[in-house]
């Protein structure tokens, strides 16, 4: 049985894995190892993210879980017509999480959570063929949340709490495909805003109709990160009144979309646990990234996105081998919010198949090490960025396209403590 499981784990690993848009589904090594399921799984403090309603079902009085992942993601782009090839040289992303819950009494648990569900770091070669869309971009959003989990009946609980977000964005692109200063250096702009605060909330419910079966639902609200008076830094601007670009401030709104999760888990026996989650991320809110420059002489920048709501389907399995080892594997399909004609190299994400695996080692009765990995493989895709002028009349950029292929490999490590 054990060997069989190992085989299936390897098989999954060998196939292919990551999340659409700039959603980064790495909010718990145990959940991640099971295809990032967890809205209906009672396992450890990761519930603070997946479904705070479940916190009150945790057996121990104090539960904590922290972890970090290393995102190695690469994109290759090629244009056959013009003989161009580029590969991203993106920095390693390090999304993290830290969860804590405390059982006040049998019916009520309180918790605290910090996690990074949205982020992106993509770095192309400076002045590459798509530099009028992006040279490099780094988005980060840290969620900090206070939680309460309340047991209504023995098999039904609700939970949730307010979220505070601290967001930052740093985005550099060339103004267009050709503009340069006298020495031939390309004119570019960096917009930078950090410590931008915003608020939201999440709430969930968990119900166990029978002991072996749990059903969960969780909703995290949309949060609009509104950058005000961020810094816009124009470089290599030609010395000419025809190009009136100079450093200024900007306002822009970056949406962190709402997410609805519905899931079910089934405990077959002491060894085997199966989980299925469905997520819908309400990307529709991300229609256009509009940058409003304070200097009235500088035309505002419109970056059409036209994202649409996306769906994820997640499957996970957990095998408790013995008192020390627990093995996990999972798969999820990650639907991309990016539509035809809006495939921008800033978040080059098409649909992906994601394979996960991992294990926990119980070092003591109170401490476990959680390891997980994720491998995302994307289908090769021929795609363009050429916003529909009838929908985005203000967009003036040139079309850009080619063949893309992305991949991501994400190992992660965490610690679970229960006292």
């Amino acid at each position, binding site marked *: 049985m054990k*060997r069989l499981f190992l*085989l299936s784990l*390897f*098989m999954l*690993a*060998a*196939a*292919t894995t990551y999340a659409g848009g700039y959603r980064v589904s790495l909010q718990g090594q145990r959940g991640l190892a099971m295809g990032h399921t967890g809205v209906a799984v009672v396992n450890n403090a990761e519930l603070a993210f997946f479904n705070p309603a479940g916190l009150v079902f945790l057996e121990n009085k104090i539960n904590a879980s922290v972890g970090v992942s290393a995102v*190695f993601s*690469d*994109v*290759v782009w*090629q*244009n*056959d*017509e*013009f*003989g*161009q*090839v580029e*590969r991203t040289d993106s920095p390693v992303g390090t999304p993290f999480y830290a969860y804590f819950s405390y059982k006040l009494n049998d019916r009520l648990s309180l918790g605290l959570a910090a996690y990074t569900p949205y982020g992106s770091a993509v770095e192309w070669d400076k002045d590459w*063929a798509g530099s009028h869309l992006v040279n490099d971009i780094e988005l980060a959003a840290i969620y900090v949340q206070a939680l309460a989990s309340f047991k209504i009946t023995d098999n039904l609980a609700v939970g949730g709490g307010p979220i505070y977000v601290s967001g930052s964005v740093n985005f550099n692109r060339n103004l267009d*495909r*050709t*503009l*340069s200063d*006298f*020495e*031939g250096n390309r004119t570019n702009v960096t917009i930078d805003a950090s410590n931008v605060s915003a608020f939201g909330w999440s709430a969930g419910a968990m119900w166990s109709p029978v002991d072996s079966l749990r059903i969960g639902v969780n909703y995290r609200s949309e949060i609009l990160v509104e950058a005000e008076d961020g810094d816009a830094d124009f470089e290599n601007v*030609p*010395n*000419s*009144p*025809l*190009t009136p670009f100079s450093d200024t401030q900007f306002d822009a709104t970056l949406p962190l979309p709402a997410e609805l999760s519905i899931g079910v888990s089934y405990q077959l026996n002491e060894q085997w646990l199966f989980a299925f989650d469905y997520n819908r991320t309400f990307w529709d809110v991300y229609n256009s990234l509009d940058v409003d420059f304070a200097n009235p002489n500088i035309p505002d920048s419109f970056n059409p996105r036209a994202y649409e709501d996306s769906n994820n389907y997640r499957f996970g399995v957990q095998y408790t081998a013995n008192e020390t080892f627990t093995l996990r594997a999972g798969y999820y399909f990650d639907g991309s919010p990016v539509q035809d004609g809006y495939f921008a190299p800033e978040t080059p994400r098409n649909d992906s198949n994601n394979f996960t695996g991992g294990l926990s080692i119980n070092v003591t009765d109170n401490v476990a090490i959680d390891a997980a990995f994720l*491998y995302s*493989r*994307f289908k*090769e895709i021929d795609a363009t960025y050429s916003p529909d002028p009838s929908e985005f009349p203000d967009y003036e950029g*040139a*079309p850009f396209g080619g*063949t893309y*292929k*992305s*991949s991501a*490999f994400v190992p992660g490590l965490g610690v679970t403590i229960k006292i």
Partner: protein
Amino acid sequence: MKNYFKYMAILALGIVSCEPELENSIEDGDVYTNGEADFSNYVALGNSLTAGYADGGLYVTGQQNSFPNILAEKFSMVQETGEFLQPLVNDNTGGLLLGGNQITQNRFVLAVGANGPSPARYTGAQPTTEVSNKLSGPFNNMGVPGAKSYHLGAPNYGSVAGVAAGTANPYFARFSSSESATVLQDALAQDPTFFTLWIGNNDVLGYATSGGVGEYQETETNPALYADGDITNPVIFNAVYGQLASSLAETADGVLINIPDVTSVPFFTTVPNNALALDAATATQLTQYFQAVSGVLTQVLIGQGVPAPQAQALAGQYAITFNEGPNRFLIDTPVTQTNPLGFRQMTEEELLVLTIDQGALASGYGSVQFTQAVGEVIAVLQAGGMPTEAQVNTLFGAVSGIDDKDVLDSEELANIKDATTKFNNSIQTYADQFGLGYVDANALLTQLDNGGISFDGGSVNSNFVTGGAFSLDGVHLTPRGYAIIANAIIDEINATYGSNVPKANVGAYGTVTLSQDVQ
């Protein structure tokens, strides 16, 4: 257990192949083929158009966007190629120094002045390219600004000592392998596997830009006796070009590029020949003036014993009528028996050069310079009086026809057309004879002048400053214009040699450079 290993192997592969790989990868050589051509050592021969000259100067960013450099970059995606070396100048000012003294002017930039954007010479920095600082080659781009067909095989054309004497070319002197080396020798010494040859433009362009002041050499066979502004004898061109093409084709594949009709470039199409804009009063005044000229001349001729009908016919050509609105300018012509006053109105197809003094045009150059004295003569005539001989001279002398150097008249245009046609016939014949590609740049530039060429982000045409194809000197191309040439050459290469070299993305190449660093 066997399966176990199999899955282990797949797992290992899965982790190793973390870098995404495309099914048909350019890097892996899956996409392009060089066909029958070998691009491994490409050498480009030619003049300013090959060198990447633009905006009235040779400067680094222009050279980086030369069509040979664009081609070489695309060739390097198709097969393993050597580095494509260009004799880069030192800066972006466009000027050259010889012994510390500036010998060529700085380039143009587009500067916004009181009357809006217009080209001006860049003055933001001193040029630092010293001709006598010889570069050590060899260089793949052997484009030499100013070179005519017969210069490529001319010894001492790259002599630094000859530059001051006016017998050598400063651009070639910078990188010639020796004082006596020829461009062709330096090219052949590199054992090129592939070449482009675009030469002959200057064999007619010099004549055209100087307003056809030079001569169309139809009998003289010694190029050493030609002036800069002469048109090369087509027989000599044919012989010289044949030598160039045959030497190159002996060991290399390549492409010959023909000569555009130089009169289709903005240098000749920007200043309209009917820019004499008149209000009704001025038109009437001019018409009356020329009636007076015609009448007086008739009397003068009759006085000289010319029969009246003949005198009237001869003088009648000067009774030019002007209308409110645009009118064509007057040009000076040689004084002949049939045109005794030596001027006439321009015909519809005749052209003015870009460098004509437009301020002068606005103040009577190309029409009549009215003075008080002229007005007095006209008053005398209108009163029915007879002007004195001095007054007649004053009257006739007020005509200010445009000088020969500023205009291409119909005869000069015919010379240009004749020579261009003959040159291109030669080029095409040699392309056929040696099995080389033949690019019709003439047709391409004509297309730019007639509607333009579109690309994914817009279109380019021959309009000066705004068209996108021509740089601010009105003759040479912008990076975008050079990219269009490169694409035409690539099309021809692919058709001739069965290759599929990728194209240049025209919209990603710039046009004119903006700067206020001008005087």
